[in-house]
């Protein structure tokens, strides 16, 4: 971060309206995309004071490794929420996909395990899509139901004990998915980066992404633009399923064991991360940069709390408070959106400490 305290603050952009008229990004728009990233940067900047151990290389590696599976599913969930729906079943999907993947691995090695993970995730997504488009069950209800169903199936498959990776497999390519480092960067995080790159292109640079946002913004108007509701639903829920499939590969090769109870409450963590990132629950808006930063924020915060010996119950409370604070800021912004009052409020905060630039 900047160290030169003499650096003049950016000049007060005269009448607020001018900035808009020239098409320059306003503070409000910047907050939409980069707000959570800025908070993450602040948090990281504060780490040397709060938690010096955090910056140790091995710890950074472990934080990135652990954030991957949450991050990959959150990328998929960003599409669902941008389309105006959400998928509550991802926790059940993760448990089921993990169990099936381990069964696949013991039956046919790495190739079958990878295929089983992606195929099971996709199948779960298609089940959701079928309920929603075929039987016209609202997404909330359909995925709430399948959350229990998927977990139930995972329990049945692990009746005689959790599925595990045997210790003698430690050298196999499959286990390396979770353990390998590429140039010092954990492979799960590399996979997550690739997923976010692809997801960003899909959302921002493809016709499909534009149609998803359009549908989320106004289903009725989207219909008269020739956008098929059925196709959007199928695509989005299949995408979430596939993201769970990929995430499960990075997850199971870290924890080595899975049964029906794996990652209880995962779905709400995912949704919290997406919303924290700035994607609107009303649909029509989605930011993958925000989701990405929010996932890292949650992981970093968690790691710091753990390293400071904060009990896990308090960790949850902190996460909840962060979510509430972030959404409060967002809500205030929307409420005072009128004549640049948020901008004024923030500029007061930003400018107060610095003397008015004389020359």
């Amino acid at each position, binding site marked *: 971060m900047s160290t030169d305290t003499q650096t003049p603050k950016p000049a007060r952009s005269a009448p607020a309206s001018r900035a808009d008229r020239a098409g320059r990004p306003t503070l409000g728009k910047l907050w939409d995309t980069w707000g959570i990233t800025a908070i993450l940067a602040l948090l990281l900047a504060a780490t040397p004071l709060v938690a010096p151990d955090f910056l140790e290389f091995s710890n950074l590696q472990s934080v990135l490794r652990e954030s991957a599976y949450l991050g990959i599913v959150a990328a998929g969930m960003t599409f669902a929420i941008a389309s105006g729906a959400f998928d509550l079943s991802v926790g059940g999907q993760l448990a089921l996909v993990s169990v099936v993947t381990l069964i696949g691995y013991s039956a046919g090695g790495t190739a079958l395990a990878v295929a089983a993970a992606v195929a099971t995730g996709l199948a779960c997504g298609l089940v959701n899509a079928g309920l929603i488009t075929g039987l016209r069950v609202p997404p909330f209800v359909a995925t709430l139901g399948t959350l229990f169903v998927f977990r139930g199936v995972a329990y049945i498959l692990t009746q005689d004990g959790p599925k595990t990776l045997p210790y003698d497999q430690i050298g196999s390519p499959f286990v390396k998915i979770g353990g390998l480092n590429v140039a010092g960067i954990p492979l799960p995080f590399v996979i997550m980066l690739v997923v976010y790159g692809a997801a960003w292109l899909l959302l921002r640079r493809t016709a499909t992404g534009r149609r998803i946002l*359009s549908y989320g913004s106004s289903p*009725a108007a989207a*219909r008269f633009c020739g956008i098929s509701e059925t196709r959007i639903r199928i695509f989005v829920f299949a995408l979430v399923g596939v993201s769970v499939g990929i995430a499960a590969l990075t997850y199971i090769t870290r924890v080595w064991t899975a049964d029906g109870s794996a990652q209880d409450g995962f779905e709400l963590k995912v949704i919290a991360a997406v919303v924290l990132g700035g994607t609107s629950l009303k649909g029509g808006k989605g930011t993958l940069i925000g989701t990405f930063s929010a996932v890292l924020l949650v992981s970093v915060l968690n790691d710091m709390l753990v390293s400071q010996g904060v009990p896990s119950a308090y960790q949850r409370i902190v996460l909840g408070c962060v979510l509430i604070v972030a959404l409060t800021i967002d809500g205030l912004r929307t409420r005072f959106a009128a004549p640049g009052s948020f901008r004024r409020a923030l500029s007061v905060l930003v400018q107060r400490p610095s003397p008015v630039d004389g020359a």
Partner: protein
Amino acid sequence: MTADNTSPEDPPLLHVDRLTVEFPGVRALDGVHFDVRGGEVHALVGENGAGKSTLLKVLGGLHRPSAGEVRLGGQPYRPRRPADALHAGIAVIYQEFNLYPDLTVAENVYSGREPYGRFSRGIRYAEINRRSAELFGILGVHIDPAATVDSLTVSEQQLVEIAKALSVDGRIIVMDEPTAALSADEATRLLDVVRRLRSEGRSVVYVSHRLDEVFAVADRVTVLRDGRHVRTAALADTDPDELVRLMVGRDIAAAAPRAGVAGDEVVLDLAGVSAGRQLRDVSLTVRAGEIVGIGGVAGAGQPEVSQVIFGALPITAGTMTFDGAPYRPGSPADAMAAGIGFLHEDRKAAGLLPDLSVRDNLTISVLGRLRHALTRLLSPAAQAGVFADYRNRLAIRTTGPDQLIGQLSGGNQQKVLLGRALAPGGRLLILNEPTRGVDIGAKFEIHQLINELTADGAAVLMISSDLPELLGISDRVYVLAGGQVVGHLTGADLTEENVIMCATTERRIFSPAGV
């Protein structure tokens, strides 16, 4: 230039002084003066984007001014929320409905002000139903107070909004385009209600694009243009031509001249088309280079015809032919692929994509064409090109391609949606109410554009409840009533009287002209 013809003796009930309202990127009102005396009907006119709706929203407590002052009965009036306006005796009927679709008519009328029983603490339904029925009696319409709002037609919903404002018993009643969704009959009765309110000593602020209504009912008129006050005058001292000139800032012709280049090639043909109970046995033809109008009273099946053709409403009997081939679209996507552009009559509910930019709103209909040949990714340059093209052609006023569509005025929103319908470059355009809620200048531009399109060989099917528009630019007009074609007018038969006759009586008029 702002020569006031007002008599200075009685102080105004409502006094708006140098009012300025700013939004990001726009100054919606710029030092506007406006006043309302007790017991007068004061019309407020201006093009879309002139600032009328913004002024009303300040009065209604939805917007707060950046500068200036409003005084009500001599006291400063600074509503912070809609309830403050109601307490002060100002009832505002907005252009957009604010109704709860799942609640009953009476519950909506008395929403937030329900009378409660003395012992049960429950809403006194009998009382609100009776009082609502009385209000509808004043309006001269029959609407069941116990019906849910979503079962009502658009014009009935408008009447519920009006009843809601009347129920407040306010000193000042503000109406924004109250007759936009009403039939001619209902509009006439509404004007009677306005006169009656005046005779009771109340004041009415009446916003309308229809100058005939303004002259029929108002005492004074204030013209706004581009957020500024242009002139306030007594109606007796002005005339429609002058008002139009003041609103637009220049002289304009009344209607676009019609090129008249209809060819012989049939683009669209409907034979005996029915759709459930909404359409019965509809037959019509549209040729290349022709503008075919569809008229009738509200709810006669006009939007349904357009939706059947666009694949948004399933056809239950009959056949359609498009470009000489049998045509049976299963979805709007099929219709678009066949080459049909569509403009929905309800801009807010089924037109705008509110979270998206003006560029994305316009290019959504041609995404397939904006992809890079190899990567299949959307090309920002191609999108910018299409947008710039239509921005120039339609004279869309926007701060830039990234501006959110909701920040544009109604007329400019409509132009973006027209661009969306035109961009695919199809052979047939279905335009539902192409100039609804659009100012006079933009209206003229849109009519000119439609003319140009037909000169290039496109066929246009235009549904319009605006009779001068329907008759002014259509080559032929079909009149609908009860989901059936009850008239087909061409040439000398194209008169307002004939349209109204067909639409509202048992008379059937089918012009013989070689059609």
